[in-house]
């Protein structure tokens, strides 16, 4: 597994600067949680790492070398909306096969799809299903399997549980933790839900208005926040506690 490093990355859309010289490292085999309110630039940071957002200055490195932003990316991303992240006209198997490297034989392809589906705790027979036949949580698992199919060094998970029911969210979070343990994946886990980040991340970075305001081991940042904004976030995580 590899380390993903953001080095003074800025992203500007027109006159609006979304990210200001953000530096952040996702160490090999670790999960870094990225928290902050919506619109603060979390998704932009992830999208920049796969070439979906143009960086104005700075660099994004994979093990010290610029991360490729064309062709099959060594950094893969899983998106928030399970209803938009799978092509409704392609079967689960076809979606996953598209991300497989090389030109595997039919048989290799099928066994690899089955392996990946098992890995995300889905029945391999699901490969023939269309996304319309799956629930939100099952779709999100397929999206994860597709990302894994590309043999990525790093996975970016952008709010992958926020569109899911709490009953399903737990299953997806358990899966993420299993995969870190079994595959040693490096992961940037983006969420606005602090309890969720706390559960899966080793490190936590807090993004506020396009700048990283605090960064450190999860237990420290969430247990003993140093920046005012982090405290503010933590207080919001228990809505109205002082009210009642």
């Amino acid at each position, binding site marked *: 597994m590899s380390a993903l490093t953001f080095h003074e990355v800025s992203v500007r859309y027109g006159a609006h600067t979304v990210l200001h010289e953000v530096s952040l490292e996702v160490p090999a085999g670790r999960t870094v949680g990225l928290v902050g309110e919506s619109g603060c630039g979390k998704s932009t940071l992830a999208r920049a790492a796969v070439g979906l957002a143009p960086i104005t200055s700075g660099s994004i490195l994979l093990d010290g070398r610029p991360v490729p932003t064309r062709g*099959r990316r060594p950094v893969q*991303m899983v998106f928030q909306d399970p209803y938009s992240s799978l092509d409704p006209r392609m079967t689960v198997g076809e979606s996953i096969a598209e991300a497989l490297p090389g030109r595997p034989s039919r048989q290799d392809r099928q066994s690899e799809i089955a392996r990946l589906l098992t890995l995300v705790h889905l029945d391999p027979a699901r490969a023939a299903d269309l996304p319309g036949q799956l629930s939100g949580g099952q779709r999100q698992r397929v999206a994860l399997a597709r990302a894994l199919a590309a043999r990525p060094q790093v996975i970016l998970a952008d709010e992958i549980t926020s569109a899911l029911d709490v009953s399903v969210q737990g299953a997806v979070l358990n899966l993420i933790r299993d995969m870190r343990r079994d595959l040693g994946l490096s992961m940037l886990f983006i969420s606005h839900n602090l309890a969720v980040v706390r559960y899966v991340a080793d490190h936590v970075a807090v993004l506020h208005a396009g700048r990283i305001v605090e960064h450190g081991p999860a237990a420290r940042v969430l247990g003993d926040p140093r920046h005012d904004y982090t405290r503010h976030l933590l207080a919001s995580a228990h809505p109205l506690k002082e009210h009642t």
Partner: protein
Amino acid sequence: MRALRRPVGVTGVVLLALVLFAAAFGPVLWGERATAVDTANLLAGPSAEHWIGTDNLGRDLFARVLVAARLSILLALAATAIAMVLGLLLGAAPMLLGRRLGRLVTASVNVLVAFPGLLLVLFFAVVFGVGARGAALAVGLAGAPAFARLCHTLIAGVSERDYVAAARIAGVGRARMLRRHVLPNIAEPVIVYATMTAGAALLTFAGLSFLGLGVQAPDYDWGKLMQDGLNGIYVHPLAALGPGIAVVLAGLAFNLTGEAFAAGPRRTHVLPPAGPPSPATAPARNSVLSADDLRVTIPGPNGPIHAVRGVSFSVGDGEAVGVVGESGSGKSVTALAVAGLLEPPVRVQAGHLAVAGEDLLAPGAHRRLGTSLAVVFQDPMTSFNPAHRVGPQLAEVSRFHQGLGRRAAFARAVDRLRAVRIGDPERRARQYPFEFSGGMRQRAMIGMGLMGEPRLIVADEPTTALDVTVQRQVLELLADVRRDTGAALLLISHDVSVVTDVCDRVLVMYAGRVVEELPAKDLRALARHPYTRALVAAVPDMETDLDRPLAVIPGLPVDPVDVPAGCAFAPRCPLADDHCRTVAPPLRDGVACHKAGEAP
């Protein structure tokens, strides 16, 4: 093929089949007749032998009309194909060529679309020269801009989807992206549009040939036949009208077929007759909302959807009641019923359903409720009309329900925006909904509810689309509003922690029923229903044990079309036994479970 169930669709498809049959077999079946010269019958009128007469060589016109179908249809289809291919290429330009070049193409297309189509056709027809080929090119080219614009819009919509981004990251190239992901997902509307375009092209061709710019002798299409027949129009009108009628029928065939498919399947699902009505009951005292045995049934493609299956509850004056449950458990439908927003074909039944003393089962209830009920939904973008400024939209409420004048109503709108803590309310009131952030829109929506004096606020997932800090502000605002106005609150959320923090009492819904009802403060520790316990355990909080996997609820929620007998939770319940699977547990003492409180 559901379009075929509509009379328009059937007419279109039958007509189209006839037209295509004539095009395919016309020359074979009637070709000889159409060329047989009958010198005894030059320019004859209609007769038993020649239904619509003959031409100047005595050839049978009816046969010629049938034979001409092939050329007419082929030319129309060729022109449509040209327009479609060009349109697709131009429409896909931004995707294939990159942003900058693509924008140039799009701008040019927009200019061309603004030109009158007929002008373009005539221009190109002159450029490409007289004749069938030139006319096909002209009609095709002239049709391309409109096609390009349609394709551009459709492609832009598909390109925004995450699966396109995911495919790009997986290394899928542009051409393959177009073929695998984009075209299949825009094919349906494009084909529908092409069908209608073919109908229009047919008319245009007839026009061109009629003007002498299209098909030239000795070939003939319908337009050419019309031109030939024109000379004798006063003596033998049918000679010109016959091919004209053919053009109209064929054009109709294409258009009706296209339209029927464009309109999509019409819902023809109907509910089976209602079961026996629930015995009428009286609303609970001192309650602002009271429902007894509320049932909501929605017609669905696979049979009636039993979204709410007998729910009884009440909300006291000033009380805050939360509703939790997985998606599809009937929370939103309950909210819509309470807000009086469900209309036939959705069926709402209840012993009683009363809000602020108004019987919601009687017609016109929503209007009579006036401003005593305020409703806040998950996505306020869909609740505001995007084309109107926010202030006047709020003012509208007071003008409609309270009869205030324009100015007074607007002043109240500004005041209410201030009350929901929107900074600089005078300026904000003059802005459009899209200029508001998500949290601000949500507050404005609450502000709209406060234009009157609500006794009950129904809020369905009001904070789900918002992030923590904004979510907290909205919840605080709701709390403040309740303190100031004494309004009661029905708060629906799938987020157990939001509900426990804001509400006094919680209803837990599963498969269209309330399975447990308990004080909010007891939700975490004192829940007795296995489902409630599982739901609470599944949510990580800041104290969750990091060394153990999160609890999950196995299996899938119940399909509301096919609710099992007995307890609906049984397939997922660790305590289920045969009794559970056959006998549905009633809600008794606040819980609907045969083994309430038992440890798993």
